[in-house]
């Protein structure tokens, strides 16, 4: 019998990819296409959803072709996606209404401040587990409905559909305007601010607060479970899972028990700690989010520490400053010097995420002297990711009451040995990289494979996990303390940069 595979479709911020995995959870082939980042105004970030669907429709067959397989050898599709990016489309024509508004977009700045009012940013945290920021979908939906003439009325009449990217892909895989399924999963829904974190259903109080008509919302399904059978691209293949990218990475790292954590290093970086079936409310700026739900089993929850700018700081160093030609070269440049020379870069490009959640903060380079070379700045760029992780780990430890003993890492930046060693040094714990760095896709594949019986159970998946690399802490504790104090002083200098009068402009 021909080998069978699971296809993971990872619809990310910069590209859409399809990766095929075999039964042992090994990566067999990869196809990828980048899409355009649209910046119509300062602070606005958009994607063309039709371009994204075209890319997905190309990378899936390309990945299958690469290994000379037949589409019939794919037993399931698992979808994972950039979270919170929001799209409205026309139910009848299947065409998007404008562009998708991306998670980094800060156009809802003022709206978010208004909504917070006197109650503050945590006004809805009891219901949805999230603070009010520009990061999540609900303010964006309200903005879109308010800024397109006639759209709200059409939405109320049921002519308009809302979705994050997994909903858009499921809809298109299942025929689009011709009978497409309009569905999301609990993890993606948990990032909208519209789902009740306990009942896992759309909450009328939240819908009312954000002025979002129920008619536009997709049906909420478990993350792992057959959504439907595809009619487009891979006709006849079942869509077995959908999860937000960070939850997928947690699943791919086989963090199936309370207390297990991972950090994924990409454009932004996200540390998720599995808290079992318990909803843990953070007092230190962590988000409460759904980790996954398998079929009709109870959902698992997670605490999340989100860092907005990590890999994208390296991209800025490459494209904005032109200091390097490729992202990987930053390590070469950073190794031309012994340390950061006293320079610290706090990349609060659109405010600071966890644990600070300061939208008015903006970035600084602190400690500049004539001694600083581009090598020192390269170090400071990489170290910024390390320090941000330490802040999140500190907050997580305080919330959970358990100190982290090892950090499981994944994502593109784990190829950077200097950063991984710095992380081990700074956190004073072992940093462990698994055999498959592409854990986002692997997690989507695992969840889809489980749904169709390709893999029997979670224990079977656990046995696929292997350590591929490990970094041990070596830093002198006194130096660690000084470095962290310097970083915290630099962070203080980013606060209150955007004054209210600027926001009114």
């Amino acid at each position, binding site marked *: 019998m021909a080998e069978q595979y699971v296809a993971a479709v990872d619809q990310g911020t910069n590209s859409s990819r399809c990766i095929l995995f075999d039964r*042992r959870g*090994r*990566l*067999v082939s*990869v196809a990828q296409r980048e899409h355009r980042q649209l910046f119509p105004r300062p602070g606005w970030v958009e994607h063309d959803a039709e371009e994204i669907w075209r890319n997905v429709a190309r990378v899936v067959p390309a990945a299958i072709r690469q290994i000379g397989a037949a589409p019939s050898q794919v037993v399931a599709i698992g979808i994972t996606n950039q979270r919170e990016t929001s799209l409205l489309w026309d139910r009848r024509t299947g065409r998007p209404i404008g562009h998708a508004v991306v998670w980094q977009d800060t156009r809802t700045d003022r709206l978010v401040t208004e909504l917070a009012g006197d109650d503050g940013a945590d006004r809805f945290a009891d219901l949805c587990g999230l603070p009010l920021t520009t990061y999540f979908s609900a303010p964006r939906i309200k903005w879109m409905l308010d800024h397109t003439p006639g759209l709200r009325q059409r939405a109320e009449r049921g002519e308009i559909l809302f979705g994050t990217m997994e909903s858009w892909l499921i809809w298109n895989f299942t025929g689009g305007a011709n009978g497409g399924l309009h569905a999301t999963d609990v993890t993606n829904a948990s990032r909208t601010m519209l789902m009740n974190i306990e009942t896992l259903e759309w909450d009328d109080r939240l819908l009312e607060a954000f002025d979002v008509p129920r008619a536009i919302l997709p049906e909420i399904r478990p993350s792992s479970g057959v959504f439907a059978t595809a009619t487009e691209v891979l006709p006849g293949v079942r869509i077995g899972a959908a999860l937000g990218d960070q939850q997928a990475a947690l699943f791919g790292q086989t963090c199936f028990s309370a207390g297990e954590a991972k950090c994924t290093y990409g454009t932004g970086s996200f540390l998720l700690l599995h808290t079992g079936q318990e909803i843990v409310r953070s007092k230190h700026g962590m988000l409460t989010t759904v980790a996954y739900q398998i079929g009709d089993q109870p959902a698992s929850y997670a605490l999340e520490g989100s860092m907005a700018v990590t890999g994208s700081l390296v991209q800025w160093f490459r494209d904005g400053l*032109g200091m390097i030609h*490729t*992202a*990987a*070269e*930053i*390590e*070469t440049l950073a190794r031309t010097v012994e340390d950061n020379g006293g320079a610290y870069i706090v990349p609060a490009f659109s405010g600071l995420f966890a644990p600070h959640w300061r939208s008015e903060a903006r970035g600084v380079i602190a400690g500049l002297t004539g001694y600083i070379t581009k090598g020192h700045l390269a170090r400071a760029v990489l170290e910024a990711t390390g320090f941000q992780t330490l802040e999140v780990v500190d907050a997580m430890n305080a919330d959970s009451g358990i100190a982290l003993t090892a950090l499981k890492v994944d994502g*593109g930046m*784990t*190829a*950077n*040995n200097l950063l991984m060693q710095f992380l081990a040094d700074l956190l004073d714990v072992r940093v462990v990289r698994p*055999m*498959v*760095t*592409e854990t986002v896709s692997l997690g989507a594949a695992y969840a889809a494979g489980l749904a169709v019986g390709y893999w029997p159970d979670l224990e079977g998946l656990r046995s696929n996990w*292997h*350590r*591929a*690399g*490990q*970094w041990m802490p070596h830093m002198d504790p006194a130096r660690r303390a000084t470095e962290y104090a310097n970083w915290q002083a630099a962070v203080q200098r980013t606060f209150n940069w955007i004054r209210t009068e600027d926001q009114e402009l």
Partner: protein
Amino acid sequence: MPGTVQSIERAAAVLRLLAAAPDGLGVADLGNALGLAKTTVHGILRTLHQVGFVEQDRSGAHYHLSDAFGRLGESYLDPNELRSRAINWADSLASRSGEVVRVGRLVEGKVEVVHHVFRPDDSDQDLDVGTTLPPHATALGKAVLAYDTSARPRTLEAYTTRTITDPVKLGEELATVRSRGWATEFEEHTVELGSIAAPIRGLGGLVVGAVGLTGRIERICDSRLRHRADLVTMVRATADAIARDLRDDT
């Protein structure tokens, strides 16, 4: 007598003009200067850009020689770039073979370990990225040495009784590597260990490094002590996959 290659002559002329223009030149400038159609010049520039000899300014309108062009003797591929291109495929090789995987490149006559993937048995292992290996005594080394005649080590130190210490024998061994496209090691560096490695070819066929696996002889070799054909196939496919990744969009 073989003729000359017209496109290389034209590329050389483009490089001469760019070298003489500190502010860079546009496609039309070059076309006018050389009497060539814009599409021809554009194709030459795109190729020169892909191999890293020319760069575009921010607006994309002007081309100039790259810094790398002035340092042709140096390695053109950043080792950290090589690691980030290799990481997925090296993981996959370790996972399929069950053995340790390394990616290496030649630096000053030694093999520098650029990437290291643990044997997937969750035993205690230490990362050895950045350490060096003797090229004549390792499969990884032979896989790069075979394609770099300037880098033959002068003294061939013995690590085991099986290490090749005779330059003539090493020459023959490297000729074998070239003819079949992969290299082996049989207790030549460490007793009881064997290894299989294949060269990674970047743009234009240039060998930029090698990828290989290492493990106990009884796992790497068959009952007749020959390197297992299935592992050789895996190693070569891995080298090809990394090479494909490198050529795609550098």
